[in-house]
């Protein structure tokens, strides 16, 4: 044992299934959950003589994804074949990109919950085709070894897949999750993918190593696979860091290998060592012509900064919206759009964010209707303005909100019609205060004797006298004024 502290060095590789009408190289539909082997054709089944034709939308999605992170889009890239035998890979090679990916470089920026800003460089994003899906039966663990039979569903074969590879810039499990969340919210915002880990449209591996704090050399890394939620990414990385630390503390050495995450035991186990690595015999796919792009074509695909979640996030944080709230807004496309149009009218970003994520978010949760459908833009704007102007307090806000939820009624009209406006007139409130202080002599004496907590009781009495309409802030101010005045 020694007291050495270690720093983790983490890089992420993730596969993102693109949202397109059709597959990467054929006209079959790209949908999740269809009957096995129903969305297939000679091309995606690797029938003899069939040829791939690239899906233009998938190319554009990948380029847009890269541009969102300021990646470079080379004027020339190409598809390569990655050769290896596997029953769920119809051609026994995968069309992928080897040395000339469609995007290279780029930076993913993200903010941790405590407000710390971090970033991770991207090595590349390339485009490839997904494999089919194998189900192995008759073995205890569902793996191919020892199975009695295997079933293959080729619906997924040929689905367009982006592989995003990061540089080893990540230093903790929490950062890894924040990185993935940043990727996810950008891809969702661009409409390039659904990014659903549970449906396999996001799959990720983590390369993890540790080194003594302050060291500049990298330690030996392991590659962690089989993580199927952001939570398991977090747990798997934490567990792997702890495992590696224990080995180094005991004077051992880390073996470079691929390790599988086991959700049940909460540990990683060895899957294969580096020595068993394949020679994939990459070479340019002769069935496909190179991808050549002009600067004008690339510019046409460039997403507008204001459409990118990281931009919106930065704006929200700059406008003093708390980081967590900002993420909540940005991660909900419907809410984000609604927020934008409401905040543009209220000119009060923080208040708008705080409002939307409080009572409307609760109502949305209870009713199953999203905020932007339950609440009209006009209603939201009016409610925020009524509160900001001091016209209504939180209690009235709740009551009015529930009445306009799903009805489209105008909160301002309800408040006006039913006289729910807060009494903010100084003279009127002073009169309520005077009456209450006159009637509550004992409490007044207690307060002056130092029991200042009776103030809340007195405030409640004033609110009651006013029928709940007095401006609570003004009430408190006037109470304090009167009580501290010499009797």
């Amino acid at each position, binding site marked *: 044992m020694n007291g050495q502290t270690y720093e983790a060095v983490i890089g992420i590789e993730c596969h993102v299934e693109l949202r397109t009408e059709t597959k990467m190289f054929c006209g079959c539909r790209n949908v999740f959950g269809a009957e096995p082997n129903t969305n297939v054709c*000679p091309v995606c*089944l*690797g*029938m*003899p*003589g*069939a*040829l*791939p*034709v*690239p899906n233009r939308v998938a190319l554009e999605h990948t380029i847009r994804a890269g541009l969102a992170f300021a990646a470079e889009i080379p004027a020339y890239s190409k598809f390569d*074949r990655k*050769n290896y*035998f596997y*029953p769920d890979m*119809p*051609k*026994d*090679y995968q069309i992928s990109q080897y040395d000339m990916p469609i995007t290279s470089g780029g930076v993913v920026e993200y903010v941790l919950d405590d407000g710390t800003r971090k970033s991770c460089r991207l090595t590349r994003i390339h485009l490839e085709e997904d494999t089919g899906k194998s189900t192995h039966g008759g073995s205890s663990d569902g793996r*191919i070894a020892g199975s009695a039979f*295997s079933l*293959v569903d080729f619906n997924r074969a040929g689905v367009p897949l982006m592989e995003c590879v990061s540089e080893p810039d990540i230093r903790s499990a929490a950062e890894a999750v924040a990185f993935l969340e940043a990727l996810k919210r950008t891809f969702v915002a661009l409409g390039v993918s659904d990014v659903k880990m549970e449906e396999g449209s996001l799959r990720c591996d983590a390369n993890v190593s540790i080194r003594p704090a302050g060291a500049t050399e990298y330690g030996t890394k392991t590659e962690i696979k089989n993580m199927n939620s952001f939570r398991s990414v977090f747990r798997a990385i934490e567990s792997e860091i702890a495992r590696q630390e224990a080995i180094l503390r005991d004077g051992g050495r880390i073996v470079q290998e691929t390790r599988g995450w086991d959700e049940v035991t909460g540990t990683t186990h060895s899957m294969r060592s580096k020595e068993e690595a394949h*020679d994939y*015999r*990459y*070479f340019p796919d*002769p*069935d*496909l*012509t190179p991808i050549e792009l002009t600067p004008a074509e690339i510019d046409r695909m460039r997403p507008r900064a204001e459409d990118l979640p990281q931009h919106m996030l930065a704006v929200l944080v700059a406008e003093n919206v708390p980081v967590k709230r900002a993420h909540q807004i940005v991660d909900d496309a419907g809410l984000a759009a609604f927020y934008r149009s409401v905040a543009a009218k209220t000119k009060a970003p923080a208040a708008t964010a705080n409002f939307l994520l409080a009572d409307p978010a609760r109502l949305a949760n209870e009713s199953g209707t999203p905020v932007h459908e339950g609440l009209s833009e006009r209603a939201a704007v009016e409610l925020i303005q009524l509160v900001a102007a001091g016209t209504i307090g939180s209690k009235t806000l709740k009551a009015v909100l529930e009445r306009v939820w799903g009805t489209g009624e105008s909160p301002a009209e309800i408040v006006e019609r039913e006289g729910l406006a807060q009494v903010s007139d100084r003279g009127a409130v002073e009169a309520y205060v005077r009456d209450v202080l006159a009637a509550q002599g004992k409490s007044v004496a207690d307060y002056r004797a130092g029991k200042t907590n009776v103030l809340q009781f007195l405030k409640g009495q004033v609110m009651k006298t006013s029928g709940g309409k007095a401006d609570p802030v003004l009430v408190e101010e006037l109470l304090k004024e009167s009580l501290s005045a010499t009797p």
Partner: protein
Amino acid sequence: MRRTAASIARSVGRGEAGAAEITEEILALSERANPSVGAYLTITADLARAHARRVDERVAAGESLPLAGVPLAVKDNMCLTGTRTTCASKILADWTAPYTATAVQRLLDAGAIPIGKTNLDEFAMGSSCENSALGVTRNPWDLERVPGGSSGGSVAAVAAGMAAIATGSDTGGSIREPAAFCGVVGFKPTYGRISRYGLIAFASSLDQIGPISLTVEDSALAYDVMAGKDPFDATSVDLVADATAPALRDDLKGVRVGIVREFDLAGLDADVRACYEAAYKDLERLGAELVEVSLPTADYGVATYYLIAPAECSSNLARFDGVRYGLRVDGPDVGAMYEATRAAGFGPEVKRRILIGTHALSSGYYDAYYVRAQKARTLVAADFARAFEACDAIACPSAASAAFRFNAKSDPYSMYLMDYYTIPMSLAGLPALSVPCGYVQPPDASRPLPLGLQLTAPAFAERALLGIAHAYEAGTRHAAQMEPAGLAEVGA
């Protein structure tokens, strides 16, 4: 009596003959002759009759079909829905194609009648058709000799009159060399001119479909139908392919024909050499100006080709793994199943090329083999580009000899050299064809055997190329002078 596609299409189009009637004649002839010639692996009689009926209906309805009633032989590495498509391999011996190759579909749409699927060297790898795992094809000029390859069945079918048009595929000479051996016209268009969709790949960057026929005009007719962009083949070119058939010419005035300095004829047999020299003289006689051109890297063609083609084939043929279709030989686990299936399913030449290609692409050798070969390929193409600054077409032999006897080339390398004259054009992706240019009678032959003159043009200059070939054909009429001696023997 062998009939040209043009004459059949004309008489069917005019209503002088029915497609059904011609189809019955050809089917009867094929039933008689095929057991000896072995051109067809499968005769698709029912399909042929159905197509013939449909063509007669279309003609009766007033449709004008460029290939109305023309009997068509399809090389068995091209898919045709519902028919067995084998690549002459045990691994696909019982595979039925679920779709039709674009080039074949275009011929059928133009009125051609699918008579059958023709034999080839397994997966189109070979130059004699002897690598077929499913049957022997004999040369109709001399049944003791090979028809050439890999499109051996297709050229034999046309030479024997069992089809007027056949499809071939040419990767390094697989249309041109057998066409020369069987005394027919074989045309490989520019890479990308004709869709490869449905052609079972050997080497994707080299494979090209083309027509085989008795005459240049027939090849032009079939080419005009097959050429053009196909949305299912990303490598097919989006260039307007002007119809070539109307542009066929009868003289060579103003045409500069390049003779390649490095293709020294001195090493050839004297009669073969004399035949080619006479062919060059004929070109001149017909008005062409002969100019000497140089292809300094042509000598590296065979070496270059035998890295690139096997590399691509090692990947293209991976899919024959016993999982989804074709032969499966079971084993204790999936890896053993792969090995047993591929060991039993592929023949020795296919295995040899898969091994060469796997090695050429493997880590540590890729740069030395595959990358260097690609660089050499660029140089070969550059040589041609320079040569075409001085000429409109290049003339050279299609092969170094006439058809040889079975088992004459037992060492693979001597077989690879059969494509010495055809490989450089494939590497450069250029349009090239073989047209009959005379006959020789080697000492071991009992009868004359045809030779072919190879003409090559710049990329996408098919129109000019076919025009020049037509003028040569019209001015020499070699093919019209003789019919294959074997025809009578086989009842054709």
